[in-house]
């Protein structure tokens, strides 16, 4: 699905991403882990078009998508969420969802002025869809709440919901779990799995919580200092000395024995 070749992204002299190459198989839920500052988010930003890569290529289904703008990628079915939730705070949850689908005829002024009726039907459909999604995420009771007033975890759910308003091919999730209560995190995990199974979304997930990664992801890619350190199943990773030494540390083992 997605293939990254020898990607570089430098900030001044600093090499945030330094020749990373990796593949994300269609239909998989790929985990991306690594120490702080490994360059995971930066890599995401480069793939999702938020940052132009310094060098290297990104291809999607064999088509070169390097350096395309986010909105172009969106229309190709590549969606992403943010490490810090980016909701539209002054709009209601429902509006947050309804604004997502692209190519709404109502978004051109001409139609907005002179073709009201056509828009009305379209709006009705969007509304229906939005309600479905809210149900799916078990937050339909919040549909008219301003998104700004949601709690951390609910915002993350809403972000996930936005990706469901259109038929995405692949979705990138950046630290869905950070600061999210574990129980809620499990709910999100289930949502992800269902999307993956029922709608055939491909996922790529950044997360520091190894239990979460372990339950959800296969394969798991480990990044360090801007390079891909190793790739494999969760158990292979946990066994990998370099990974332990760079990222997991010995604490994890102790805990499991404890």
């Amino acid at each position, binding site marked *: 699905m997605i293939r990254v070749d020898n990607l570089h992204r430098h900030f001044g002299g600093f090499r945030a991403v330094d020749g990373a190459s990796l593949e994300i198989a269609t239909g998989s839920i790929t985990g991306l882990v690594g*120490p702080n500052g490994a360059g995971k988010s930066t890599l995401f930003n480069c793939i999702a078009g938020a940052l132009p890569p310094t060098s290297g290529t990104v291809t999607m289904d064999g088509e070169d998508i390097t350096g395309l703008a986010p909105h172009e990628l969106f229309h190709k079915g590549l969606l992403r969420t943010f490490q810090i939730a980016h909701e539209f705070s002054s709009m209601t949850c429902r509006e947050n969802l309804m604004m997502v689908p692209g190519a709404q005829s109502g978004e051109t002024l001409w139609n907005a002025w002179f073709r009201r009726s056509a828009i009305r039907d379209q709006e009705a459909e969007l509304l229906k869809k939005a309600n479905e999604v809210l149900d799916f995420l078990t937050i339909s009771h919040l549909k008219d709440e301003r998104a700004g007033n949601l709690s951390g975890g609910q915002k993350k759910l809403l972000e996930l919901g936005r990706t469901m308003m259109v038929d995405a091919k692949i979705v990138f999730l950046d630290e869905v779990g950070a600061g999210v209560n574990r129980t809620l995190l499990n709910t999100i995990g289930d949502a992800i799995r269902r999307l993956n199974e029922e709608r055939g979304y491909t996922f790529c997930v950044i997360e520091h919580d190894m239990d979460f990664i372990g339950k959800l992801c296969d394969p798991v890619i480990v990044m360090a200092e801007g390079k891909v350190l190793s790739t494999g199943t969760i158990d292979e990773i946990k066994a990998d000395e370099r990974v332990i030494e760079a990222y997991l540390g010995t604490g994890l083992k102790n805990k499991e024995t404890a």
Partner: protein
Amino acid sequence: MSDPLHDDRGNRDRSITNPAGQGSPLPGYHGTAKPAPGGPFLIGDAMTGGYGRGADILHSCTIAVERGEIAVIVGPNGAGKSTAMKAVFGMLDLREGAVRLDGEDISRLSPQDRVKKGMGFVPQTSNIFTSMSVEENLEMGAFIREDDISGTMAQVYDLFPILKEKRRQPAGELSGGQRQQVAVGRALMTKPKVLMLDEPTAGVSPIVMDELFDRIIEVARTGIPILMVEQNARQALEIADKGYVLVQGRNAHTGTGKELLADPEVRQSFLGG
């Protein structure tokens, strides 16, 4: 955030509007401390209150920590953990309840004065001066101290050796884990009588997390009581002498770390099974 003064709508032009580091609304506390002997070293007693004129977020919630102990607060998102910490630190209006430190009622003190009373606080987010060097960050920690601070700084440096290397670097260029260490160091510089940490390990890789926990235990061993919020509840409760579970601003469960870990209901609904 529905009121106009706060939603940042239509504010693209960062060249004329600079929200960087803008603080949060504060209550206008200007009172003085009253003696109130007895009780634990630090206690937020039956606190009820919320932000500004907004609805109450805490409902008679109690949090306490004794000398040399580590107390941990866990709970779902939006439960009010951070809020509780802020309440103890005088950063939101208490409608009821009191905060007592070392036999004094400090409920009416302004945050600055609480710092002077020896409270150290590391917030959940934006807890360092990104534009200032590591060393300046530490100096700022010691802002209220008139005496010579070099000794304390030395201690902080052998507690967090990495900081010594990067002391001249702007703190903003450090990675997530290192930032947290700077933040804790900054708090320690005040020679606090009690240390409060809000999710020190959020978004921090496992290895750094373990590192941090070890350090925290060390600090506690030096006799400084520690009150902290954690989402990595399991790990936290393992090192906790006392644990609080908050739900919607109320104390749901209280007990020693071990007890809570053992409690199936708690595991089920807060520690993710």
